[in-house]
């Protein structure tokens, strides 16, 4: 039952070869016994999960099959509100007892799809918005990488990455403001999908940055991510930023002609040797089905735009939290004061960043209109060691122009594993697409995964 794709599990559940209750009990057992090994779990939702599993068993048994997620357990990043007295901590010690009266829209939609919430998953405190620069930045401890326990799982969706990689849950929900889905997915060797901005409602989710936050899935394959996205996407009157068109995942879309993939030279700058070697190998694999062309992005300060927007919006979103003195209770020492510097962001500079974002978004679309997707290393570095300060695009110590552009322009991206580096740590590959076109990047990632087996490798975790 462990490390099976959602499509495999779904077929077994639909045909009643597998019981939702048996699957959920097995998953709960793994979450409870192995979750602490990776600091991956905040709260196990055992009672809610078993009630949902029993309901799914009854429904499927009576012929009412809701779809491919019916009866499948999952974990949610602990910034998504859950009702029923289940805490929603945002990864922050001062908020350990925080509860909400209603489920976030994403949780409700997964309920409606028949999926089963088994755990609230660990995350970097306040989604990393206070300026952390080392892995130990959550009251649950540093996220530990299932491939090598001396290394970080990535963040801020730390538990979402490690829980999927370690086979604790078949899929997880994470969120990204700038890198928080792609980082843990890439470092943990699983697939992650950052949807187009507005594709998934943020109602009931912690806000870090209103104009950058996105919610998306992490799973074993790109195909699994597409299945989850279909369940959680769509307009929501409670989140006015949501795209009004519904999203239907076109998993059957074949491809008669060759792909045209663009490489952005900026995305290769500063890559570690093993990352570059894995990327070159991936390009060789992709050239069997794709033409690969060099693509040039206009010379704009993408990372500066992202940092100013994120800084200004986070300072406002957490103004009351900061004024209350609650920062002093955070885990990472630097999270207790770094955000004070954001008082130096002037309103006119924030607005300038927003105006430049519009230019960047138009330029990105012009580039992407001529190709199917940009292909790039998923992360420029391997998972950093625990206990050390790491390099971060948010602080300007590592290059991530493509990540900055993707997030300020609200573009979708999917990341998949593409090899291993020193220490047995995964490397990764990302496809960045045109706004609203998740189907194309998912199809490109599926084409890559159909030709490789990196997504079938498993970390040294008990099966």
């Amino acid at each position: 039952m462990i490390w099976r794709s959602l499509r495999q599990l779904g077929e077994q559940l639909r045909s009643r070869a597998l019981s939702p209750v048996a699957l959920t009990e097995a998953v709960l057992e793994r979450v409870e016994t192995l979750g602490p090994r990776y600091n991956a779990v905040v709260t196990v939702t055992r009672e809610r999960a078993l009630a949902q599993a029993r309901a799914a068993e009854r429904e499927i048994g009576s012929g009412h099959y809701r779809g491919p997620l019916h009866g499948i357990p999952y974990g949610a990043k602990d910034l998504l509100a859950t009702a029923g007295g289940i805490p929603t901590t945002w990864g922050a010690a001062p908020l350990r007892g925080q509860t909400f009266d209603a489920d976030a829209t994403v949780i409700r939609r997964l309920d409606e799809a028949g999926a089963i919430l088994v755990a609230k998953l660990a995350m970097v405190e306040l989604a990393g918005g206070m300026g952390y620069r080392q892995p130990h930045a959550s009251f649950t401890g540093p996220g530990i990488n299932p491939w090598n326990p001396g290394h970080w799982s990535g963040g801020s969706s730390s538990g979402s990455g490690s829980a999927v990689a370690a086979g604790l849950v078949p899929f997880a929900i994470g969120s990204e403001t700038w890198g928080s889905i792609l980082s843990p997915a890439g470092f943990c060797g699983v697939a992650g999908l950052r949807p187009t901005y507005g594709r998934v409602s943020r109602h009931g989710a912690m806000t870090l940055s209103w104009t950058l936050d996105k919610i998306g899935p992490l799973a074993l394959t790109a195909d699994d991510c597409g299945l989850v996205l279909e369940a959680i996407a769509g307009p929501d009157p409670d989140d006015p930023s949501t795209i009004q068109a519904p999203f239907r995942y076109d998993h059957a879309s074949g491809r008669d002609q060759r792909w045209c993939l663009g490489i952005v030279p900026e995305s290769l700058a500063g890559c570690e040797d093993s990352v570059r070697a894995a990327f070159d190998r991936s390009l060789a694999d992709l050239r069997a089905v794709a033409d690969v062309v060099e693509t040039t992005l206009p010379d704009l300060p993408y990372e500066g735009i992202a940092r100013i927007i994120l800084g200004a919006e986070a300072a406002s979103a957490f103004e009351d939290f900061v004024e209350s003195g609650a920062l002093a209770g955070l885990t990472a020492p630097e999270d207790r004061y770094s955000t004070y510097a954001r008082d130096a962001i002037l309103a006119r500079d924030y607005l300038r960043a927003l105006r430049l974002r519009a230019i960047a978004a138009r330029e990105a679309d012009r580039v992407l209109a001529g190709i199917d997707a940009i292909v790039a290393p998923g992360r420029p570095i391997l998972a950093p060691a625990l206990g050390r300060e790491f390099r971060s695009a948010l602080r300007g110590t590592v290059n991530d122009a493509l990540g900055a552009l993707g997030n300020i322009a609200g573009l979708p991206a999917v990341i998949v594993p593409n090899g291993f580096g020193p220490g047995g740590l995964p490397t990764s590959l990302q496809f960045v697409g045109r706004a609203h076109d998740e189907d194309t990047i998912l199809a490109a990632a599926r084409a890559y995964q159909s030709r490789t087996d990196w997504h079938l490798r498993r970390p040294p975790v008990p099966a």
Partner: protein
Amino acid sequence: MSGEPHAPGPDLELEALWTAVRQRHGARLGEAELADLRQSVEGIVALVRALRRVPLANADAPLEILVPFRADTGPPT
């Protein structure tokens, strides 16, 4: 016009912003934290200067647009 080079003076904008940050939050911070915070403010000033170097036209607007709110009917479709 004297051809004498000007000695570099204090960075008035940086110092004004740093003074504002330090006065508001400095009392609760130690020396090491203050030094770290000063570096962060310097980083922000450097970032916004990079942004200011990119020319913008008067009509270059943010993507965000105001949608006047009505609870009863919502926006027109």
